């Protein structure tokens, strides 16, 4: 039986493609018609073709679990794309640029004059207890005053269709390679669909990234040496590190390939001897990048890297210490941060956030925990969260205790009814919850990816989209409907 959109139940949620059963949104009509015209056999064929393309292309990520250590998994992918109209996207893009600009000014201020604290907008106490604030960076300002050159912000939509920023990832955000590869796979498998729409291309990200990194070079030379520093093949995002290095034509290095010499410059070990490095796009967390300054046990980093960076002999993206803004408690201040530095109203909404560090807000969270989503301040990848409505009484109690023990480390948000999009399940389509992670590059100017990585929770009713927790992804099409 071919797919019947009349049977597609959108439930209480906002669906990205379908307004009501049998009634696709205007920009999704051609796509829905196309899918409806496929026989079961064709649908399965496309699905198999996509899976086989992903397998052969070697698009993988690593998952850590207790039983098996870490295993390389094939990237789970759904063949129904997620569409966003260009008109709407342009508004979102403006909001993201505004947000990242303000966050960079905020980080630079925290490490230098701390005006925002003096002016009573941001509490001193929060900074004192911030895990990701690096005292080593005090009094330092990287070129252009930019700390987070690459930011990945997670966007969600609630049942009213409003777009919210759920979190900002300013340490080592990952996922952009999958955005690029998803498009590759769709072009291999569904070339006919591309003729029906004006889909804006996403391919220029690697060149934009290269250009941005090149502007950071301390040496004014035509071809600065740019490297991508990876923890190695056992890291969950190794595929992405290799992919971006390849796309940029940069060297992919591990810590052992680099050495900081007596002149405080960074060199790589080559077959010709040592060769100077200008820019390091590092995909290793702050704690591990330099055993001389941070975790002395780390074998992933480079001894003396911080010295070289502070001497201005090498650029690091993102700058060490950017993570101070990658904190769920800081997140709750972003609207004030935007108004303070830019004197503008925020264009994108923040999800209302309760800070457990404030006693009355903490009491509210403890009393309503079964209705809320509780997040630790500094975890990523969906680890350590509590989704109140989906958890047991025992788990609620555990989290109440965790909050009481360390209120600074927890925030809570009302449970949003995330939007859905049609996803292939067997021979049918069913709604699955999703989010969107666009990537924002900040150099001389600020650039945003055309769309981003759509992550989808493949389990019915689940809202956890992280690939480390069994999420999958879809290609994201920014479609220009004005011309057609």
């Amino acid at each position, binding site marked *: 039986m071919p797919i019947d959109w009349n049977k597609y139940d959108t439930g209480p949620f906002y669906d990205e493609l379908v307004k009501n059963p049998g009634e696709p949104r205007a920009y999704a009509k051609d796509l829905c018609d196309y899918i409806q015209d496929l026989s079961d056999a064709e649908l399965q064929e496309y699905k198999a073709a996509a899976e086989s393309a992903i*397998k*052969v*292309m*070697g698009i993988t990520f690593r998952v850590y679990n207790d039983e098996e250590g870490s295993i390389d998994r094939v990237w789970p992918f759904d063949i129904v794309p997620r569409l966003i109209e260009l008109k709407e996207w342009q508004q979102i893009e403006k909001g993201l640029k505004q947000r990242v600009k303000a966050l960079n000014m905020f980080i630079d201020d925290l490490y230098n004059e701390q005006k925002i604290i003096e002016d009573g907008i941001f509490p001193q106490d929060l900074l004192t207890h911030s895990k990701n604030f690096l005292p080593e960076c005090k009094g330092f300002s990287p070129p252009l005053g930019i700390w987070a050159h690459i930011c990945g912000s997670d966007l969600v939509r609630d049942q009213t269709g409003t777009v919210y920023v759920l979190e900002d990832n300013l340490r080592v955000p990952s996922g952009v390679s999958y955005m690029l590869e998803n498009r590759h796979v769709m072009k291999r498998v569904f070339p006919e669909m591309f003729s029906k729409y004006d889909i804006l291309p996403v391919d220029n990200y690697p060149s934009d990234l290269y250009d941005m990194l090149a502007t950071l070079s301390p040496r004014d030379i035509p071809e600065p040496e740019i490297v*991508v520093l990876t923890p*190695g*093949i056992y890291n969950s995002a*190794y595929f992405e590190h*290799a*992919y971006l*290095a*390849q796309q940029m034509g*940069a*060297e*992919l*290095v*591990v810590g*052992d*390939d680099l050495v900081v010499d007596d002149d405080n410059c960074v060199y*790589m*070990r*080559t*077959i*010709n001897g040592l060769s100077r490095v200008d820019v390091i796009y590092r995909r290793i967390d702050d704690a591990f990048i330099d055993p001389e300054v941070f975790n002395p046990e780390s074998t992933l980093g480079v001894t003396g890297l911080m010295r070289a960076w502070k001497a201005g002999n090498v650029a690091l993206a993102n700058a060490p210490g950017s993570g101070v803004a990658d904190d769920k408690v800081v997140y709750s201040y972003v609207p004030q941060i935007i108004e303070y530095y830019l004197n503008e109203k925020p264009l994108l909404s923040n999800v209302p956030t309760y800070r457990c560090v404030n006693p009355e807000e903490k009491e509210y969270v403890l009393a309503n925990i079964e209705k809320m989503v509780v997040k630790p301040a500094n975890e990523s990848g969906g680890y350590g969260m509590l989704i109140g409505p989906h958890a047991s009484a025992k788990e609620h109690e555990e989290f109440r205790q965790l909050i009481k023990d360390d209120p600074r480390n927890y925030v809570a948000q009302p449970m949003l009814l995330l939007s859905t999009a049609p996803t292939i399940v067997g021979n049918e389509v069913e709604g699955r919850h999703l989010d969107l992670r666009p990537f924002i590059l900040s150099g001389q100017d600020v650039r945003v990816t055309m769309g981003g990585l759509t992550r989808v929770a493949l389990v019915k009713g689940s809202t956890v989209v992280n690939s480390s927790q069994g999420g999958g992804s879809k290609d994201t099409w920014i479609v220009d409907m004005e011309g057609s």
Partner: protein
Amino acid sequence: MLSRVASNLCWLGRYLERAENTARLINVNSNLLLDLPKSIVLGWEPIIDIVSDRTTYYANYEIADERSVLGFLLAGPNNPSSIVDSLEYARENARTIREIIPREAWEQINELYIYGDENRQKALFRRSRYDFLTEVIQSVQKITGILAGTMTHDEGYHFLKIGRNLERADMTTRIIDVRSASLLPETETEQSAFENLQWMSVLKSLTAYQMYRREVRLRIRRSDVLKFLLLEERFPRSLLHSLQEVSKCVQTLPNYEAALKEIEDVEKMLMNANPQTLIQDKLHQFIDDVQLGIHQVFNQLEETYF
């Protein structure tokens, strides 16, 4: 070029070549066994001698029957030179230098690894064995072609070729060493038919039979075969040709003098050898010396570049 990357490319070349050579070896042995008379018990032990050693083998297997030896050659256990292991190492090496090799080549290497891993059972059965081994051989050929046709012939490419040709030289010496041992005690009378068969199989193990025929139109004779396999510089699998390839590649690299000297030492050894006088014991000694020379070339490369 990073030292680590150079080393990985060199090993990638080696492992791919190793998988292909092992597949060719099994094919040839299967055919030879079908041709030999029942009175000659050749079996599969000589193959173990070529790719590994009997001690390792008998630590894991009780007998050297077809099924056990094939299992060992295909996927071990404890045979790091097995086809499936070689393909896995090749893939791991390619994965750590994904950004260096053309995407198409990576996809082929990845696909070949998946094929080998999923179909290893196939080669255990005579009926599907040929298909499996041919797929491995042709896939490696395809990868070699993609790399030759789409990768910039820079230092990285030369390291890959160095790895391939050193592995090839190593394998050639092993095959000559094991396969040239007489199948029959010297006392037997009319054995020429099988003697002929034996030297044909030596050539075939190195995919050299057809080319040898075009070159040497006489009956197949031991000394001619040895001369062809050791010294025919126009034949891409001869020892001298492999070494000359390594030599050419090395000379495109920085600071190549020490490595070049090691290669030239082995080349001299070959040039001075007289295949006419290399009877069994002497041949064995000679091959040992050549193998040692090849190892020294590799050690010198590691010393200089990795």
